[in-house]
């Protein structure tokens, strides 16, 4: 049983390329637009796409994604409607799709049922920002059983001991948080990223994806460390916020531009 995430990174590695991972909040402004956005992002060069499930209280999110969540909830988006979106996307694309969501949405749905749904609809991985290593047993066994990758996060504050433990059981890639704080575009990243990369690399051979605060091609170019992937979220969500249903083309341009990086 292969996982599309792993496949994708293998492929990119062979081509000696970095991955571009992009993010949108599903249902912002509506699910039809989200559908178009995902396909367009892939079209313009996104290698993996993270689909955010809106939550009432997204504590790891800055104002941009928080507001996107509120718009998505207001448009009636539910977990089930997002599984339908994934099903629909899978009729068009075989690229890796991840869900980004808060643990309560999994827990309340029933972790086992949720994971089963991921498998049947075609989700490849989950990013659960409020599920640290210590609580991973909430989903781990179910995810492993169905070969859904649980993407673990590492922050600049993560110490060596925990870092080793976290990467040990990881699959797909490691989500490396560039800075303290919540999601959102940053004008400057103060973390010593070269050292951050090296620290993690010492412990694992998995691809390392850098996220939080990334927004422009120039910024990505200037980043130190041999990161295998960059994750761009809030910047895209800002464009969706600005253009709403008409954002597909603009988001496409942005992704294309980011992708030119390599």
């Amino acid at each position, binding site marked *: 049983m292969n996982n599309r995430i792993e496949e994708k990174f293998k492929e990119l590695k062979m081509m000696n390329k970095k991955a571009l991972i992009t993010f949108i909040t599903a249902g912002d402004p509506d699910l039809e637009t989200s559908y178009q956005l995902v396909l367009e992002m892939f079209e313009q060069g996104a290698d993996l796409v993270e689909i955010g499930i809106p*939550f*009432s*209280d997204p*504590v*790891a*999110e*800055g*104002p941009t994604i*928080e507001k996107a969540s509120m718009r998505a*909830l207001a448009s009636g988006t*539910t*977990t*089930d409607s997002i599984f339908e979106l994934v099903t629909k996307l899978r009729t068009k694309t075989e690229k890796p799709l991840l869900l980004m969501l*808060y*643990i*309560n*949405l*999994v*827990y*309340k*749905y029933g972790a086992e049922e949720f994971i089963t749904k991921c498998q049947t609809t075609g989700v490849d991985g989950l990013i659960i*920002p*409020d*599920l*640290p*290593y*210590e*609580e991973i047993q*909430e989903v781990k066994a179910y995810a492993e059983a169905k070969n859904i990758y649980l993407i*673990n*996060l*590492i*922050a*600049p*504050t*993560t*110490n060596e001991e*925990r870092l080793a433990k*976290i990467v040990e059981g990881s699959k797909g890639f490691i989500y490396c*948080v560039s800075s*303290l*704080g*919540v999601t959102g575009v940053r004008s400057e990243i103060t973390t010593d990223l070269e050292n951050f990369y090296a620290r993690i690399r010492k412990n694992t051979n998995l691809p390392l994806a850098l996220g939080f605060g990334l927004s422009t091609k120039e910024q990505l170019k200037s980043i130190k460390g041999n990161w295998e992937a960059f994750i761009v979220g809030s910047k895209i969500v800002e464009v969706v916020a600005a253009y709403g249903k008409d954002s597909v083309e603009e988001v496409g341009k942005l992704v294309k531009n980011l992708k030119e990086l390599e």
Partner: protein
Amino acid sequence: MKSKFGEYGGQYVPETLMEALIEIEQAYLKYKDDSDFISELKELYEEVANRPSRLYFAKRMTEELGGGKIYLKREDLNHTGSHKINNVLGQMLLAKKMGKTKIICETGAGQHGVATATIAAMFKMDCHVFMGKEDVERQGLNVFRMELLGAKVTAVDSGTGTLKDAVNEALRQWTRECDTTYYLMGSVVGPHPFPTIVRDFQKVIGEEVRWQLQEKEGKTPDVIIACVGGGSNGIGIFYDFIENKEVELIGAEAAGQGVDTNYHAATITKGSNGIFHGMKSKFLQDSYGKIMPVYSMSAGLDYPGIGPEHAYLAESGRAKYLPVTDAEAVEAFEYLSKTEGIIPAIESAHAIFLAMKIAPELDNDKVIVVNLSGRGDKDVYQVARYMGVDINEQ
């Protein structure tokens, strides 16, 4: 340290915060049995909080209601006017020992914010308080008290603009500066180790009740009642008696306009298991796990969750949680004011109401202890408005 109470509790937070939580846990483990820490805290309890707080026999209430004897644990007489200061003193001392120089916290009614701002002033710590915009409006007095004390108060207008959103925003802020800042959690909620630490710093309430009632009545209480928002005053008075199985423990939840309406905050009565604000516990949420907007006229109880230890006590049947509506709380608020000359916090009035119901059903030799968690000065305008009284609002 155990991070869970049965299945409840845990540490469901962004990875960025894990180190900060571990640091707090380790510091707490180091100091909690340290004799210097213990004696400094004891002195702070006495000299600053004004402990022990009095155990007051509500003679007139007892006579009028008939039945069990009612005692009030007078946390309202603490410096700053509520039980919140106990916990703040403990955590502030811990933060200081950890070398922190800045404190952030959330607040609902403003009592925790005021207590934190007060002790931050004493400890010369920077203090940043997050408070829901709606609460800023209904508790303006407390907002200015905090500002006077030198704290920065941020009105949070995301979400429902109440306590839960204040917690969200404080957590976000903490994620930004967790390397230098101590998050001083105001109730027995949030990720481990907060529910345990806060409980440990509040359990002095119940410990005092034990010896005070022993002195006055030569016995342990038969019933203990407390209001529960997050649950800190509740666990504070319950904890010492959990092993005394014969002592009935009752929490009063905010039923707002009624548990059958959409306007309440009765977490145990109407909630279900979930994971939020870093903890597994009981929450008011929809079938997908979206946290529901809650309502109570009492800002301090207007929270969609409850501390994990309470969820555990409820689940195991050791404690019982009953809903009390706004109208009932206002009735108790007025009743206690007129009967004993004590204006209770509207939060505490929820507990008083249950005592009014329960006392007449008990024999004369039974003793009910109600935790009077705070004083009601902060609430008089709001109650006046609720009662439709036209008062001069300055």
